[in-house]
């Protein structure tokens, strides 16, 4: 066996010198969340790195809604799910159709629509929040979950259209030409050729819109207000205004809420990384 050279040892040491702080930096806030979730109420504040008596009691309280802050836990979780899935599906529908019309059917003015969409993509969402809130008031949609769904579809669509258009520009034109020769109508082209070929990008975009919606706080908190219609992040935010917030339950709920997006991310990682990050910035 050969002993590693001194230089190799020093390289490893340098890498560890970056790796260990990076590990701690990444994991600490999440571990803190987890620590609170498994600590009994009184020992949560002791500042230990591991609780003396780890317990699942907090999860039980959350799941059985045994605290007045959590009276609507399941309802709110369902709201989050319903809203996120609706936003994902609608975004996909709107964006795929638009991308097909622009990229494959070469609809007149398609380029202009694309540029306008891109322009929207660059308006910081927080700047559009106040006018969006007033607009939803005018349309009479405030406090309806449709307000949030439509607002988030508006925010998610531009990027979705852009990524889908980039992907569909790469499909060979000959495919469409051959299908048209065989007498395919534009809708058959869309259904039988376009959608199957675009499936991987559509998975990436659907997931993108779903996660964006699931994680949204600002718009949800502006557009929804009833305890039974709000999403779980808004409910968590409402904990904040109370002086006697049950922090261990807040953290437990937060941990539960963080789990699905993390899981989805890791499941779809392959699509997400290639589909989203490569499209996000074209160098």
């Amino acid at each position, binding site marked *: 066996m050969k002993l590693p050279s001194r230089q190799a040892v020093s390289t490893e040491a340098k890498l560890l010198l970056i790796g260990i702080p990076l590990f701690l930096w990444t994991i600490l806030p999440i571990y803190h969340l987890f620590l609170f979730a498994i600590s009994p109420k009184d020992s949560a504040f002791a500042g230990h790195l591991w609780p003396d008596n780890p317990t699942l009691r907090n999860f039980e309280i959350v799941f059985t809604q045994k605290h007045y802050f959590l009276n609507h836990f399941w309802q709110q979780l369902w709201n989050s799910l319903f809203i996120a899935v609706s936003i994902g599906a609608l975004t996909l529908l709107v964006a795929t159709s638009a991308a097909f019309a622009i990229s494959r059917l070469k609809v007149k003015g398609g380029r202009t629509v694309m540029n306008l969409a891109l322009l929207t993509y660059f308006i910081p969402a927080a700047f559009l929040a106040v*006018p969006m809130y007033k607009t939803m008031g005018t349309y009479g949609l405030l406090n309806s979950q449709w307000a949030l769904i439509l607002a988030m579809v508006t925010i998610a669509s531009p990027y979705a259209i852009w990524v889908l258009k980039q992907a569909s520009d790469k499909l060979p034109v000959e495919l469409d030409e051959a299908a048209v020769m065989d007498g395919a109508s534009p809708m058959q082209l869309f259904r039988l050729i376009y959608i199957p070929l675009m499936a991987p990008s559509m998975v990436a975009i659907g997931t993108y819109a779903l996660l964006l919606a699931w994680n949204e706080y600002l718009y949800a908190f502006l557009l929804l207000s009833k305890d039974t219609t709000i999403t779980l992040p808004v409910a968590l935010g409402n904990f904040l205004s109370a002086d006697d917030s049950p922090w261990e339950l807040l953290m437990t709920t937060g941990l539960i809420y963080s789990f699905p997006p993390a899981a989805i991310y890791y499941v779809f990682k392959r699509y997400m990384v290639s589909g989203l990050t490569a499209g996000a910035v074209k160098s």
Partner: protein
Amino acid sequence: MSTIALPDTDAVRPTKPAPRRLSATQAWGLILITPYILIFLLFVIYPIGYGLWLARHPYSYEKLYEDPIFARSVMNTLVFLIVGINLKMMIALGLAEFFTRQRVWIRWLSVLFILPWAVPSIPTILSMRFMLNPEWGIINTIIFNLTAEDGPNWLNDPTLALSLAIVVHIWKSLPFWTLILLSGRLSISTDLYEAASVDGATGWNRFRYVTWPSMQTLYITCTLLSMIWTLGDFNSVYLLTGGGPADLTHVLATLGIRYLRLDEVDMAMASIVCALPLVLPLVYFMMKRLSK
């Protein structure tokens, strides 16, 4: 005159069957693009128009000018953008280099490293907020155990609180930008690095003469894009500090909500209109790059 008219008739005749085909395609194209156009008109154009209309009174701007919180928020936003984004992008660039190293543990770390970006911001920001609690927070408990002295009251000091909001922002979005810069870094041919080592280039010189020239366009695009998005970063500030203490840590993204709460919608809109000179050049630049 006839020479001008002729090519027209010539061009029309051979493609005579085409217009019907074309118009069917165009019709379907229009139908398919209509949902987005409707969304755009109803939820982008109308709100923007409405917002500008609300912000039409000059006295809104006078009031804004007299509100010390507005000036403070503009300063905070600039600090957030200039210090925060540059710090974040430099760290991301360094980490992109770090993650190119082939080690099993680095691969595992890279999987874990994505977590802050993948999880929703509200639970993790609340977690950090509680870590910073001066009495029971874990950070001050550790400081007390080590030094037997009370730690600082983190979120009660405006400078410290804003810096921590920047830290939260970096924590949250660092993985995304590292990933993008890493994909740029991996597309540089290894031949270049081998050639550089043959020439005796190490460390800094490898970065200076190989990595940076290939990455600088991507790096600048990322920095600008990140600036635009960070202008709209509501969560990092609002959920950590709530704009406090004494409204001294507001940024432009949270200021609109503050005015909305005070029932001063015209001020909310005017503050956003005032931010436009900051946004539009960035947007113009990005549009030029991306619509190429």
